[in-house]
């Protein structure tokens, strides 16, 4: 099957609606199709990959650890929009340390998060062949 550039655009907070959780289910399935997958985190979507999430008080599943597994599925291009972080008083230090192991470089651990500004994000989106937004 052909390989295409897929981008999953995450725009919503992880809790409060089911979009983020169900979007992640699509991302995981896409891994089985060996496509060139990227994720974008913009607007409230940046909250999906913040550190220290705790859902005890709302009685919902905390699925943030699933993002840490994405590197094992060769999903290692997570574009995060700087302006979206700044508008929410966040910095990259507030995000989880998401990494992948590069088998072509003696399994060296490399960061999956790529910080981009708004216009760079537009450029990355313009390169995609299939863009699904959540």
């Amino acid at each position, binding site marked *: *099957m*052909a390989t*295409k550039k*897929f981008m999953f655009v995450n725009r919503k907070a992880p809790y409060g609606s*089911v*979009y983020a959780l*169900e979007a992640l*289910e*699509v991302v995981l*399935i*896409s891994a*089985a*199709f060996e*496509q060139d997958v990227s994720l974008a985190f913009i607007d409230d979507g940046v909250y999906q990959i913040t550190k220290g999430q705790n859902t005890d008080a709302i009685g919902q599943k905390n699925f943030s650890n699933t993002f840490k597994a994405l590197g094992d599925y060769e999903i290692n291009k997570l574009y995060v929009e700087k302006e979206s972080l700044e508008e929410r008083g966040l910095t990259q230090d507030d995000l989880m340390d998401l990494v992948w192991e590069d088998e072509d470089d003696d399994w060296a651990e490399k960061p999956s998060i790529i910080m981009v500004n708004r216009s760079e994000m537009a450029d990355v989106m313009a390169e995609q*062949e*299939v*863009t*699904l*937004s*959540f």
Partner: protein
Amino acid sequence: MKFTIMINEGPYQHQSSDSALQFARAVLAQGHEIFRVFFYHDGVNNGSRLSVPPADDRLLQKEWSELSKEHDLDLVLCIAAAQRRGIMDASEAERQGLDANNIIEGFHISGLGQLIEGGIQSDRTIVFGD
């Protein structure tokens, strides 16, 4: 050109299904092909046959069903999303030990792989959602 259409919102609550329906008709009218229509999130509610809107309102589920019959469209409800929201076909209801099913003719239930395959096989993938 070959299209896959994704619908992420339920009927009536949101315009996404109406817009997608009009888009689908326009695509077909211009001689293009619809490879698949994939319903996700609350969009799976577009596949229920138990909606009863007021008489002067449109019945979206039936419009999709009829469009499917007319053009042999592949209308797919995501199984995981459908199970969460109580949208069942006969075999799935039986497998889950439930006493009813509610899927309308023309739709079928399948996995998320159908969406990814749609993206790969189609020239354009269009998302209708919030």
